[in-house]
C-alpha cells in the first residue's frame, strides 16, 4: 500500500523525499528519493533522478535511477538514463537507453 501517491493530474516541480513508498501516476520534475519502493505507473512522467528501494517502472522516466534493491522495467516503459541496482529486469517491449550497473 503506497503511502505517497502523485496522482495523474498532478505536476510536482521540485524534490520529493519519502521514507515510504511512492507511486507516481502524474508528473515529477526535479528529484525523487524514497526509502522504500517506487512505482512509476503507465502514463506517468518522471524527469528526475530517482533513488529508492525496489522500483517498478512502467511510465516514462528521464534521469538516473538508483535502487538498493531491484529495478523492473515493464513493457511500455520508456527509460532514458543510467540504472544502478542490485538486480535489473527489462521486460520485452520496454524502451531503454542508458547504462546498466549491477553488482556483478
Amino acid at each position: 500500500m503506497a503511502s505517497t501517491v502523485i496522482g495523474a493530474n498532478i505536476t510536482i516541480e521540485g524534490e520529493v523525499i519519502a521514507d515510504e513508498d511512492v507511486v507516481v501516476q502524474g508528473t515529477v520534475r526535479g528529484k525523487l528519493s524514497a526509502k522504500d519502493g517506487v512505482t512509476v505507473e503507465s502514463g506517468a512522467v518522471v524527469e528526475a533522478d530517482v533513488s529508492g528501494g525496489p522500483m517498478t517502472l512502467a511510465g516514462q522516466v528521464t534521469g538516473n535511477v538508483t535502487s538498493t534493491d531491484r529495478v523492473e522495467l515493464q513493457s511500455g516503459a520508456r527509460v532514458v538514463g543510467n540504472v544502478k541496482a542490485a538486480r535489473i529486469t527489462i521486460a520485452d517491449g520496454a524502451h531503454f537507453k542508458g547504462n546498466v550497473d549491477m553488482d556483478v
Partner: protein
Amino acid sequence: MASANATTIIGRDTRVRARVTGASDVEVQGHLEGELTVGGEVRVTETATIAADIRARRIVVRGAVRGDLNADEAILLEEGAKVVGDVRAPRVAIAPGGLVKGYVETGHAGEGKRASHSTATRAAPAPVRHAPPAKAHAPAKAHANANANAKAHANAKAHTNAKPKGRGMTLAGGKAPPPVVPVLKKGTKAALTKRR
C-alpha cells in the same frame, strides 16, 4: 494502490519541496514546502506541516500551515488546524480548536476587494512574510508602492545622514538636503583622492 483519477497523497513520512500543480485533489499528511495550486480539494491532515501558499477549489485543514490559503469555494479550518497566514474564500469556517493568525476574508472568490483591506492585513499581527500574494490588484500594488517609496525615502535619508555611500540615493530621493552630500563626499572619496 489508487485508481487513475485518485487523489494525490503526500504521505506522512514524505517531504516535498516543490511547486505542486494540477487539477485533482491533494491530501497532505507529511511535509510540503513551496507552492500548492490545484483545481480540486486540498486536505491537510493532523500530521501535516506545510510551508506554502495553497490555492484550491476547497481547502480542509486539520494540521499546520504557514502560508496563505485561497479557495474558490470554501475553507474549513477544523480542530487541530494551525494556520499562520491569510485566509480567503467565499466561505470560511473555523471550528473550535482551529487556530489562525492572519487576515481572514470571506464572501468572494479569493481575489477581488483585496485592495481596500491590504492595510488591515498589515495592521493585524499577521506573520511577517514576503511570499508574494498571487495576484495583487492594481490599487493594492499602488498602495504597496506608496509604502515602499515612503520607506525608500526614509532609508535614503537615514543613509545620507549616516554613511557617505548614499550619494546616488540622495539624488534619486530628491528631498534630502543638498549640503549633506558634499560634506559626506569629503569624508570618503575626496579624502581618498587627496591622500593619493
